């Protein structure tokens, strides 16, 4: 008998059980597919970011003047040259960044008024020469050395639509819009925009800038592109349109080969302390930039999370396929027994079941690669919608899929090998003994008869059947449980996200749903006409002055000995020494009539100290009554802004689940050298007017740079959450599909296994629906126990997930939200598919041929 003979037989075996084979192959496929898809996507996302940053020459160090400080063009670069640091850099670019108001109403296809706060960012003279290899080549000769730039371009832009700047724009005032913003408003690739009320300016394209792969509003809202526009232009254009003359406020650098950003930073810190001793200068390494850091940790967390999820899914699928493979191999035992009794050699004996197993596994792996590609593609296109990138990798990840295929093929196949090996080694007699009569436990079966709940014998069958094959039953529990735990966790995370939004909404809009934050372009005296004019507007019911600054909470240094000496020794702050949290610190009157954070714990307006979010306090390990070091800007007598570190007491914690929100009494503005000053007003419109309407009125007031309704921040949060739930949805769908497949598979097996019992029942006149009922209850029990295991596992997974979130969600105080509905959902997701799957067998059961089924003598 040649191989052809065995393969023909195997093919017939497979065909006879085609649905089970297909179901098993699909289970393997979903396990390997999610594993492959998730991991391939993770690799691709990381590489896409790395290459995007590289393509756009993202800076390695940013030297920024503190808010409100500017210097003449060439000063910053000059300081660098003077200190002899040009050796350490490849490219250097001075730039001007300013908050502006944007009006793109004329370009908006909806003919809406699109008037939003935004950021005007200069890009270097060389910037236009990237993103195009032909021009890249010409850059080496055509490189411009100007007062503001040296070496190669830094932080260039990439055109998603339209174009970037080129020589053809020389002498013209043209700008480019941030792609996110343009996309959010459906703007055409070129058109007109009004920047800061300075007349119409032409924009020539929609671009991506490495500092703005995610759009973060000053209020801290992520994915804020709808309400926060970034616009790019050559330096001269930005200077002209913002009225800053020839001044700049930032210098960005790329390091020379062999120089680390930390080295460059340390050197620059020393150099600038000498050149600009009074001005506050902030040095930020590229990898420490908030957006870049957020993205990087988001990638890592997502990857870690998806890794766990894919392992659980793979595990669930593996348990199920183990189970099915075991069963299929058992069904071949008898045939092997006969062949053995007929004197066939063991080697030949093993061929058929092994070929059978191998073909199923192979089929599973092939489907798995297809499913993996589909999942990877879905994740990538979802990701591209959230974070469009200049470089998007989508190549096939052979290594990942080889790994996935390895697991997907080997696991089920090994089970087959073990089962077959055991069968081949046993005596033919044992194989011939009807398997359906024997029980797989060694303990004997008297304990089985204790499974005797219910009055009718029929009612006892389900539990009895499950108990008869304990290994198989437990494996099934585990596979259903694994998938349910994923489902449970995903839905709970979604709920927790929703809770953050709801709580934010409740806290931020408490008592003043139409509250708007009106920001001034400068610090004004509270008594000044600029502030008074707004308070006196007829659209304004009440207003309260706010002094809002960016500050950084500094983590504990206790472990590093005396902090002062530590700083002295290191010649600056050691980033690794403690955790830093950037916050928007609002100084306000705690007794004002507009809004105030509802603190937990007592709060005396006169006391100096901070009101922090619970998340910030937890992350820094501080409690109410303790103290926290804060790095904050401070204005000197001369009017120049510097940076200072001050130790503040922590007065109370507020209930807003956003980490970046911190508050202090405005009476203490003197700490910033800004006593009696404010740079914003929290304004409530007269009744009947919405925050959006008030925003429009406010933006037409001279001196007001921004006007943000707090409802917008809540909307941004909601948007962020809904985008984040895209991945959750994909995972949930896979989990539900796995439950369905497991349900179908166990039903298929059960139906085949109990065909004879069912025929006997029919012979005694038991109606189909009651027979079906027995199977449904049996399956439902598996679903129920799986769901119970799943909720337990899901709760653990949820704890883990929330404990490790960072990146976009690090600023959110996400609490596990275990609502009853999640439990109900988990139970339904476990029980419904399993209990209802037998319905699909209804017709098959009705058409069961009784005489031949009953005739078989095992």
């Amino acid at each position, binding site marked *: 008998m040649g191989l052809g003979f065995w393969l023909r037989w195997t093919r017939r075996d497979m065909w006879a059980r085609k649905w089970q084979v297909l179901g098993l192959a699909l289970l393997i496929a979903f396990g390997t597919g999610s594993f492959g898809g998730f991991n391939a996507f993770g690799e691709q996302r990381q590489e896409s970011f790395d290459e995007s940053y590289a393509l756009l020459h993202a800076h390695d160090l940013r030297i920024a003047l503190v808010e409100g400080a500017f210097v003449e063009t060439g000063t910053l670069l000059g300081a660098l040259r003077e200190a002899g640091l040009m050796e350490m850099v490849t490219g250097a670019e001075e730039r001007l960044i300013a908050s502006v108001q944007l009006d793109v109403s004329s370009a908006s296809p909806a003919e809406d008024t699109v008037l939003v706060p935004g950021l005007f960012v200069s890009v270097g003279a060389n910037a236009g020469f990237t993103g195009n290899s032909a021009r890249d080549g010409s850059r080496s000769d055509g490189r411009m050395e100007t007062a503001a730039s040296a070496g190669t371009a830094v932080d260039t832009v990439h055109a998603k639509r339209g174009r970037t700047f080129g020589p053809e724009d020389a002498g013209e005032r043209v700008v480019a819009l941030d792609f996110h913003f343009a996309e959010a408003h459906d703007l055409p690739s070129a058109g007109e925009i009004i920047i800061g009320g300075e007349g119409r300016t032409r924009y020539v394209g929609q671009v991506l800038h490495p500092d703005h792969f995610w759009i973060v509003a000053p209020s801290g809202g992520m994915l804020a592109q709808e309400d926060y526009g970034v616009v790019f232009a050559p330096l001269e254009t930005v200077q002209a349109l913002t009225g800053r003359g020839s001044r700049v406020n930032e210098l960005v650098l790329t390091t020379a080969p062999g120089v680390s950003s930390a080295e460059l930073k340390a050197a620059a810190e020393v150099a600038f302390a000498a050149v600009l001793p009074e001005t506050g200068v902030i040095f930020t390494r590229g990898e420490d930039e908030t957006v870049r850091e957020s993205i990087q940790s988001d990638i890592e967390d997502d990857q870690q999370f998806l890794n766990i999820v894919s392992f659980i899914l793979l595990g669930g699928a593996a348990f199920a396929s183990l189970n099915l493979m075991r069963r299929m191999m058992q069904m071949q035992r008898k045939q092997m027994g006969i062949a053995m009794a007929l004197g066939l050699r063991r080697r030949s004996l093993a061929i058929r079941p092994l070929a059978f197993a191998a073909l199923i596994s192979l089929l599973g792996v092939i489907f798995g690669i297809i499913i993996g590609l589909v999942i990877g593609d879905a994740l990538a296109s979802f990701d591209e919608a959230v974070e469009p990138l200049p470089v998007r990798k989508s190549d096939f990840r052979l290594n990942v899929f080889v790994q996935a295929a390895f697991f997907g093929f080997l696991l089920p196949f090994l089970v087959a090998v073990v089962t077959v090996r055991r069968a081949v080694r046993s005596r033919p007699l044992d194989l011939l003994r009807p398997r359906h009569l024997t029980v797989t436990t060694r303990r004997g079966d008297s304990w089985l008869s204790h499974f005797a709940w219910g009055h009718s*014998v029929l009612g006892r069958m389900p539990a009895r059947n499950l108990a008869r094959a304990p290994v198989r039953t437990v494996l099934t529990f585990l596979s259903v449980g694994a998938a349910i735990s994923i489902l449970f966790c995903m839905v709970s995370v979604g709920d927790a996200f929703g809770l953050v939004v709801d709580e934010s909404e409740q806290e931020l809009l408490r008592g003043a749903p139409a509250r708007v934050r009106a920001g001034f372009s400068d610090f004004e005296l509270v008594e000044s006409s600029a502030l008074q004019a707004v308070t006196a507007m007829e659209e304004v019911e009440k207003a309260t002055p706010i002094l809002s600054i960016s500050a950084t909470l500094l983590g504990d240094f206790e472990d590093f000995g005396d902090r002062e000496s530590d700083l002295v020794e290191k010649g600056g702050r050691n980033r690794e020494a403690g955790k830093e949290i950037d916050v928007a610190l609002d100084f306000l009157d705690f007794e004002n009539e507009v809004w105030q954070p509802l603190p937990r714990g007592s709060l005396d307006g006169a006391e100096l100290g901070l009101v922090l979010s619970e998340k910030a306090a937890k992350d820094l390990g501080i409690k109410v009554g303790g103290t926290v070091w804060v790095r904050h800007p401070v204005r000197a007598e001369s009017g120049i802004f510097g940076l200072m570190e001050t130790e503040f007491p922590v007065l109370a914690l507020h209930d807003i689940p956003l980490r970046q929100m911190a508050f202090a009494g405005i009476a203490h503005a003197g700490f910033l050298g800004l006593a009696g000053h404010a740079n914003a007003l929290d304004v409530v419109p007269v009744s009947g007017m919405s925050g959006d309407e008030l925003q429009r009125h406010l933006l037409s007031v001279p001196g007001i740079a921004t006007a943000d309704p707090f409802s917008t921040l809540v909307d941004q949060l909601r948007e962020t959450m809904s985008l984040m739930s895209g991945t959750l949805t994909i995972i949930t769908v896979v989990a539900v599909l796995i439950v369905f497949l497991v349900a179908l598979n166990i039903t298929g097996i059960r139906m085949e296994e109990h065909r004879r019992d069912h025929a006997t029942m029919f012979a005694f006149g*038991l109606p189909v629906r009651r027979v079906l009922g027995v199977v449904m209850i049996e399956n439902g029990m598996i679903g129920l126990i799986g769901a119970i295991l799943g909720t337990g596992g899901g709760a653990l997974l949820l704890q883990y997930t929330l404990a490790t979130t960072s990146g976009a969600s690090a600023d959110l105080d996400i609490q596990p939200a275990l609502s009853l509905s999640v439990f109900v959902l988990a139970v339904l997701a476990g029980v419904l598919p399993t209990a209802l799957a037998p319905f699909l067998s209804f017709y098959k059961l009705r058409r069961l041929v009784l005489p031949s089924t009953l005739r078989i003598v*095992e």
Partner: protein
Amino acid sequence: MIELHAVTKRYEIDHNRITALEKVDLAVETGEFVVVLGPSGCGKTTLLNVIGALDTPTEGTVRVGDHEISSMNNAELFAYRRSTVSFVFQSFNLFPALTALENVQFGAEVGGRKRWKRSGGGKSGEERAREALEQVSLGDRLRHFPHELSGGEQQRVAIARALATETPVLLADEPTGELDYRTGVSILELLLAQAAAGTTVLTVTHNAEIARIADRVLSLSNGRIVTDGPPTTGRLPVTELRW
């Protein structure tokens, strides 16, 4: 009670026509004890299946009691099997997940409450199952699972299950096939007693010796009834049977 008219059952596999039953005419009275005799493959099981509505004849009509089986719909067929006939299968077909007692209890309960009442007594399914098992001398093996019983014991459980249904027609396919002489005799006595109590009993065997205890013997050959009447070799009381 049972009337078959020109019943034919054919199977066709790859143009190869197999006739399991050929124009069978048969009438059995209520309470009659009929033995169906014949060599392997002559159509005995098929005959029982047709009477028990497990199989439909290719041609001909089957009438049992007031029921015209050939014209019944599916629901009526189930009801008929539940209320009118019960089987002892050639291959037992016990439920492996149920104990001996529970297997028999299944038979006692399958007909529903209505029939329990009719049987008087008002006994529970479990009590009646216990009794049936006592009757086949398995009162001490109630809690054993089928795979813990010998072939003969399994067969007796199958017989007890059929008895427990208390249907008017009992169809037994080789009920003594796995049994030793003494046990076989007691089982046959049991079936005879059932017939005496009014149950119509059809028993299949290929053993001509056993057939001698019957009122009436049907000899089948190649799907046809060749003889029909009292045993040709003369009737014997069960106690004098030898095989």
